[in-house]
């Protein structure tokens, strides 16, 4: 197996120390940072697929994320510019005002990312106005609102309202998800669709943007 393939394997199999060792070995052997990141991307595809199939769960996603950020630390100094990768489209996402649950949202971000979307994550407890400003700047085709608390239903509604007031509502599709979100909540908030899990988010984005 080439160094790169070994690295892909180590990441996908959650062998943290081995992955870091191989990253260093690749860099030392003169591989470009692009090649290393390519391996990471390939491994993440595998992790994403295994998550979709119900083989991997949260511990694996967190471990994969952890390995990745350690790899990035090693490669960063060598990186002149961010790799230009062609993406299908842009998705803006965040957990709405008053809510700080982000485990579900982070999985959605991860899955959108491995499925080739450019994702901007605004984090948690995001006020409506911040969504509005980010829509203006980032120009996403899709906005994803995450929320687990019942108070999030109102925040979602207000966020969608704020997009309307700013005249941006018809430029984006809005999907919502998290916890008790269902069709009732979708109707209440005025979102275009709701999704039960990260795959639903990916499918909605694909349906709306293509890719």
């Amino acid at each position, binding site marked *: 197996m080439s160094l790169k393939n070994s690295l892909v394997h180590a990441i996908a199999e959650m062998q943290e120390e081995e992955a870091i060792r191989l990253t260093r070995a690749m860099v030392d052997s003169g591989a470009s940072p692009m090649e290393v990141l390519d391996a990471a991307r390939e491994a993440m595809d595998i992790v994403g697929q295994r998550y979709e199939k119900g083989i991997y769960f949260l*511990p694996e996603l967190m471990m994969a994320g952890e390995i990745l950020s350690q790899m990035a630390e090693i490669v960063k100094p060598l990186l002149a510019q961010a790799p230009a990768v062609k993406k299908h489209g842009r998705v803006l996402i965040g957990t709405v005002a008053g809510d700080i649950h982000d485990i579900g949202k982070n999985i959605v971000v991860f899955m959108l990312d491995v499925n080739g979307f450019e994702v901007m994550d605004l984090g948690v407890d995001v006020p409506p106005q911040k969504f509005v400003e980010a829509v203006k700047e980032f120009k996403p085709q899709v906005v994803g609102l995450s929320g687990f608390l019942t108070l999030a239903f109102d925040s979602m509604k207000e966020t969608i309202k704020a997009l309307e007031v700013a005249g941006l509502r018809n430029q984006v599709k809005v999907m919502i998800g998290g916890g008790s979100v*269902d069709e*009732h909540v979708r109707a209440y908030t005025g979102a275009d669709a709701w999704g039960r899990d990260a795959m639903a988010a990916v499918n909605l984005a694909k349906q709306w943007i293509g890719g």
Partner: protein
Amino acid sequence: MQAQTTSEQKMEALFAAWMSTEGKSFVSPEVAQTYQRRVQRFKDVVQLKKPDQVPTILLTGGFVADYAGISHGEMMYDYEKAARAILKFHEDFQPDYQAASNFLPGPAFDRLGYVLYRWPGSKIPSQSLPPTMPFQMVEAEYMRADEYDQLIADPEYFCLRVYVPRICKALGGWQLLPTFFATMEMPFIPFWLGVSGAPPVMEAFQAFLEAVRLNAEYGAVSGRVSAELMSKYGMPGTIGGFSKAPFDILGDTLRGTRGVMLDMYRCPDKVLAAVERLTPIAIQMGLQAAMMSQHPFVLIPLHKGADGFMSREDFKKFYWPTLKATLLGLIEGGAVPFLFVEGGYNERLDIIAESGLPAGRTIWLFDRTDMKAVKKFFGSWACFGGNVPASLFYAGTPQEMETYVRDLIETVGQDGGFFLSPGVVVDQARPENVRAYLEAARKYGVYG
């Protein structure tokens, strides 16, 4: 010599104490009867019998404050207002059992310098939320990854001297607490008391005692409210104590979600050793509370073993064995574990059902688990309920609520061993939907 009491007898004794009207006051003999009938109803369900009607509970959080028009901050700082809000809620809705609310002693948390949560109106600037927000836990690594050995060697020592000083800033001095074994020789005692006299240790004890006193002020009001609900309306309390799954003790507020999940890969043996060491503590916590309140139900909210959180294999390895041991320990002591199964448990039902827990000794409240599957796997050995969605309380119509409750009772509630409950804590709701929920319960929940 007296014959040993069995766990069955211990449980019966706790049920009897809960059911007893002795030392409790009621406005009339009829109300006392109503009280006893309601306790009996839940007892029947636990023991897999068919009661007169489906017991119906309401898990309410912020809704009580919202409904009464007071803020979440007032719920934690203005006890008289909070008491009136709770009484008004029960008077207007007439639930069968006392419903929980976010009524808690804010001043005691302030005095402890409690930084594990943020809450409305906190006097600690970093912890303060606007009065309109409910309290919330702050997730972080309160135990470091390199502290497993310390936790495993002596969990209570670690808790008192490392964990508590971190999450209760005013108890920071406990870091310096000398060992209490020094009491074993008289000449050692001056040293022991001397070290305890260091200003930070003294301040910590002072803060602790003041928090105890502040909590007692709250306890007096909360006791009075509960007694009034019992006396006026015959509403029994729903919960006698709390505990947690050992994995959640570790994963929620010691290592945090991310921490514990990485540890499952980095140091699985330590995770396993830690949850084992925490098991007797989980049992003791629940039993102590149940004995003190003379009420058999010990609520255990389940967090990080749900579908999606980990694989079935990991559930069987990391989560279930020590939770099961906790349940068995509680049952052994006569308590009835009341599991609040948050999220989905569709991938766990068979594992739990086949693990040989004794029949008629546990209660299972489900959130987003398929209730038909629950009935199939649990119906023969454990009572269950839950599942009425928060979204329906908030964004549904009374008609939709009625239909949901009817369908639920018709599909899984026909043979007894079933209680009605929301699947989550209801924080926000339309009053007409809460009413529709309770009315539907009475309309469709009476067994012919």
